[in-house]
């Protein structure tokens, strides 16, 4: 079980039932569980979609697309069955929030999938959980079984005359599968290679049927919107950025943890107040605001609202909510290398710019960090990244390119400090404090 934390500034919506024993179905029912889906059963599908649209809920997986809008793209009539697919393949470095939702409140995800199914006219839903989260798939399987036993799932749910099945599915280690089209390939029992779009999953998805794919946190937010109302939810956040979100504070912080804060919460405050500031009296060097794929922000760039638009305005992305904090002992070249090593490892190899680009970047950065770099490498690193950007089937190429370009742009001097055979300035004896925990 992961450690839970709290802070007075938190606004608990998705995390409302954390630590309350809500994996138990009776306890979940006591905590207003399965009320939202019963309300949705009495509504027209379009009314559900409008409610979610008006709430300002945007995809919590990283792209920040309007959830209600996504649902509205599913055709009303379809010859093939429609599906709802919950993306719980959480693997963006810096992100560990869906894990807590599955661990603490699995029925909320089930209920979210149910409401989404009612909205788009699907009779089958899947909850995909990454393979490393084995203990969570055990929790989820039990939750689904319990829901079936009470007649909440299966034939004639809640006596409504409607049938709805929900199944769990497990991965086996692949970041790429978190991308929606690769996720469907994986669920179909194949390598997780992305599909070209259009057609979009809402039209042609799982086994060719229209499919809605939402992140676990997004779906877990939906029941709260149905109960509290779109207005209430929208007002928790900032204009066009409804609600709250789980922020995963990680890296050089005194109080790392997963905190639920209103959309638009100030990043500086998040680091110094919620996260307890930087340990050992160190200074802040940089922040990766939304998982490893988002461009780094400098210490002087963090006085911004943490919502999709606020972070975009600062030249980065809110992404998946993984806030990684770097103090002044961190070598950016090494950090860039570790980031690229990840993307090189996870590139599925389907598109050449990503497959070759991440490999060359890894090789160049490895050599560069070891002190064997030449001046030209710095521009080459940027150039290689730029040539991946927007040239691949899926956003993994972009995810590798965007942070790398920002590292070079914002920390060029630090790259130069590694030139001419100079050893990494951050790896001198005693310059790094090895283990923090």
């Amino acid at each position: 079980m992961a450690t839970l934390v709290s802070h007075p500034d938190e606004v608990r919506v998705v995390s409302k039932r954390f630590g309350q024993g809500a994996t138990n179905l009776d306890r979940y029912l006591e905590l207003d569980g399965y009320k939202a889906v019963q309300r949705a059963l009495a509504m027209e599908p379009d009314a559900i979609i409008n409610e979610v649209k008006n709430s300002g809920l945007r995809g919590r997986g990283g792209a920040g697309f309007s959830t209600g809008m996504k649902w509205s793209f599913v055709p009303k009539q379809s010859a093939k069955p429609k599906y709802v697919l919950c993306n719980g393949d959480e693997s963006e470095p810096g992100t560990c929030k869906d894990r807590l939702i599955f661990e603490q409140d699995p029925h909320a995800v089930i209920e979210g999938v149910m409401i989404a199914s009612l909205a788009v006219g699907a009779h089958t839903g899947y909850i995909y959980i990454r393979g490393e989260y084995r203990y969570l798939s055990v929790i989820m399987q039990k939750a689904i079984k319990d829901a079936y036993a009470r007649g909440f799932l299966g034939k004639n749910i809640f006596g409504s005359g409607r049938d709805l099945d929900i199944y769990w599915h497990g991965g086996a280690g692949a970041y790429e599968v978190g991308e929606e089209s690769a996720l469907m390939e994986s669920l179909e029992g194949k390598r997780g290679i992305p599909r070209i779009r259009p057609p979009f999953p809402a039209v042609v998805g799982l086994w060719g049927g229209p499919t809605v794919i939402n992140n676990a946190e997004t779906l877990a937010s939906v029941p709260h919107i149905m109960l509290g109302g779109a207005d209430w939810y929208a007002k928790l956040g900032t204009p066009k950025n409804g609600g709250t979100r789980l922020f995963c504070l990680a890296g050089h912080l005194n109080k790392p943890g997963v905190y639920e804060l209103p959309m638009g919460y100030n990043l500086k405050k998040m680091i110094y107040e919620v996260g307890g500031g930087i340990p050992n009296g160190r200074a802040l060097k940089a922040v990766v605001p939304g998982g490893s794929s988002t461009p780094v922000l400098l210490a002087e760039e963090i006085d911004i609202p943490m919502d999709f638009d606020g972070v975009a305005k600062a030249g980065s992305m809110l992404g998946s909510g993984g806030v990684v904090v770097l103090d002044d002992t961190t070598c950016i070249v090494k950090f860039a290398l570790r980031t690229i090593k990840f993307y090189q490892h996870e590139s599925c190899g389907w598109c050449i710019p990503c497959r070759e680009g991440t490999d060359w970047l890894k090789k160049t950065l490895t050599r560069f960090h070891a002190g064997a770099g030449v001046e030209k490498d710095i521009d080459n690193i940027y150039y290689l990244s730029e040539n991946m950007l927007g040239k691949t089937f899926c956003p993994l190429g972009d995810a590798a390119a965007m942070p790398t370009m920002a590292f070079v742009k914002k920390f060029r001097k630090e790259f130069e400090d590694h030139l001419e055979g100079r050893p990494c300035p951050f790896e001198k004896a005693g310059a790094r404090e090895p283990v923090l925990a």
Partner: protein
Amino acid sequence: MKFSEEFETRFSEMLTHYPTKRSALVPTLLYAQDEVGYLSDEAIAELAQRLDLTELEVRNVISYYSMLTTGPRGKYNVQVCTNIACMLRGGEEVLEHCKRRLGVGNKGTTQDGLFSVEEVECIGACSWAPAAQVNYDFHENLTLEKLDKVLDEYKKKGTQ
């Protein structure tokens, strides 16, 4: 080949989830691996036959997923995360310590077959870094001392 009853229950249940048999492949491969220790030739042939696939199709899928392996590993596979959030809090030191203590390199297995060590990508424990997984169990907020204790416990469990 024969799998346990538990596997058979899971397998037949998984088949009811999907319109195509093939969809059960990835989760059932992992279940088979848990049982055999790795995806042996026999296990691959068996699953291929059950799911109406060629062995090549199954191997093609196996090679994509990093948790799946066709070679034996230690009874306890110690997977140390060194990705950014863990790296900032000492993940690399944890990995080095682990390798030194067990006397193996990355993806190596100790001679008694008890432990193997693997450097892995983000396991979703960023706010509790540095972290490692031993098989499926998470061990978080690690220090070198804490890691030693964890390894001692598994050693005791494995040699009992």
